């Protein structure tokens, strides 16, 4: 068995693959955040809570309505996205004329409310959600046993990320969105309903968070606090990638997963901190992030 730096290659590849899987969650979540910040200049602290709501939605659909994973993948993002639209319409909209930090504070408060309510109702220990039958089992890759569901996670996340990037960067709808953020008055003058676009974009970003939540439900326990500590890491990913850059968040998300996986092998104690160290360094050298454009 060959070794790299004292670690057997088998173990190394195994950890890297795990890291890639975790990275896909980071990428999916930071994608939603990047869309919301990049296009709307809102820092959505509620993202973690909305991720959690997506997971609970999946649980609810299965246990109360008998609708399985496939349904959850479609319905949960729509439901939570609608909730996001409601938030934007009633509360966030009033803060656009103020400093962006107020948006941050509001979404922070909302996150506390949502998490507290769920905690009150469901306790903190979490609820079980089974891996869908079609995705059970796994394949033996030689260097590790890869559960099918985890392979699905990587594939699907990658697909969603690339599809979103394509829509925003390469289609007309995307170009309207980007134009609307840069110069809303002008775009409005062209007859495009800018406030509605903003609302729908926020809803879309929230929907992405919920989608990540549905995907997380079978492997991580569905619990009210599942998003709370994750959100800080995702913020770091978005900042490193460049707060407005979609591709930056995707790449950084996957890259971070890999780096975390490597750290877990060589120096596990630091696996929690490595992302923040990288963020501090990046912010010092390239303040706008790796892929971002300075504003």
């Amino acid at each position, binding site marked *: 068995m060959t070794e790299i730096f004292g670690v057997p290659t088998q173990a190394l590849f195994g950890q890297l693959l795990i890291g890639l899987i975790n990275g896909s969650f980071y990428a999916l979540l930071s994608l939603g955040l990047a869309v919301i910040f990049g296009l709307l200049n809102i820092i959505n602290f509620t993202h973690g809570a909305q991720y959690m709501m997506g997971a609970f939605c999946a649980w609810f659909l299965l246990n109360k309505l008998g609708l399985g994973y496939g349904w959850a993948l479609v319905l949960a993002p729509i439901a939570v996205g609608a909730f996001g639209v409601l938030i934007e319409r009633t*509360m966030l909209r009033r803060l656009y004329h103020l400093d962006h930090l107020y948006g941050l*504070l509001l979404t922070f*408060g909302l996150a*506390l409310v949502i998490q*507290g*309510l769920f905690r*009150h109702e469901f306790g903190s220990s979490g609820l079980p959600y089974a891996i869908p039958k079609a995705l059970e089992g796994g394949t033996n890759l030689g260097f590790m046993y890869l559960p099918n569901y985890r392979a699905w996670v990587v594939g699907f996340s990658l697909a969603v990320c690339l599809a979103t990037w394509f829509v925003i960067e390469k289609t007309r709808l995307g170009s309207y969105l980007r134009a609307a953020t840069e110069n809303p008055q002008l775009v409005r003058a062209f007859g495009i309903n800018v406030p509605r676009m903003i609302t729908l974009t926020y809803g879309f970003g929230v929907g992405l968070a919920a989608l990540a939540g549905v995907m997380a439900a079978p492997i991580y326990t569905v619990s009210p606090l599942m998003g709370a500590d994750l959100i800080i890491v995702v913020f770091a990913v978005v900042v490193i990638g460049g707060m407005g850059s979609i591709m930056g968040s995707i790449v950084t998300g996957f890259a971070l997963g890999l780096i975390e996986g490597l750290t877990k092998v060589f120096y596990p104690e630091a696996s929690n*901190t490595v992302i923040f160290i990288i963020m501090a360094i990046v*912010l010092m050298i390239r303040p706008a992030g790796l892929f971002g454009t300075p504003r």
Partner: protein
Amino acid sequence: MNGRPQLATRLAAPAAGLRQQRIALAAMVAFFALAPAVIYPVFLMKVMCFALFACAFNLLIGYGGLLSFGHAMFFGGAAYVSAHAAKVWGFPPELAILAATAAAAALGLVTGAIAIRRQGIYFAMITLALAQMVYFFCVQAPFTGGEDGIQAVPRGRLFGIVDLGQTGAIYALVFAVFIGGFLLIYRVIHSPFGQVLKAIRENEPRAVSLGYNADRYKLLAFVLSAALAGLAGGTKALVFQLASLTDVHWTMSGEVVLMTLVGGLGTVFGPVVGALVIVAMANYLAQLGAWVTVVQGLIFAVCVLTFRRGVVGELAHWLRKPL
């Protein structure tokens, strides 16, 4: 993002309203001096420690215009230093608190140097990241005791004479520390330094063009804020004889933001009122478990949407005098 954060209340010229501020100061001193007769003293000591923490935070955001989302690293880090100094090194309480303050100031210098280069959201994010690093360091480092925290911290004898085990004695110490810290902040706000800081907050390019080194002023404010937060944390560790991970967790950073927001960003007395409200609420709603978080979140949301000036800010607005 333009360089004019509008987070703080625009205050009237400081000379006006001095009488109101003096009255408020006297009321505050009287309250904390007399209240222990009717209210549980340990609760009041907790309020005072957090009030000092919030005032230190407010110095940075209200007067410096910099929102730090990682202030728990100074508060909690200092609590650990103070606890360790008192318990393991056998420092007397006054030296333990001083060591804690110095440590917080040093940490403030290092983190400030990194964070000051950016503004607004980026500044907040950097402070959050740095605070997370400190948190994870505290989780791992053996001297912090990890999840257990540092327990059974001896209160010791102040100056070798006064036994702080007595509630009256420790209350007097906390009272002195709080009033001292508060007056220091008050002095800083109303000094030429404070004026320059406000100028930088209002319009940094203009301040720079007038010849002020904006970065140096901001860094100094940051270090001062960190040191005073450390003073609060170091004192708290001795009062409760415990330093734990709760003190360095990011939710603690969020709480101090909440206290200042509720009390009134950029007002002198706001943070004290905010601390009183939030600590009292947490105490009396503790029976209800998860509801505390919900209520805190609601207060946050309501304050941001409709009550941006905070309690003291609204009062000041009504009186048309700064408070």
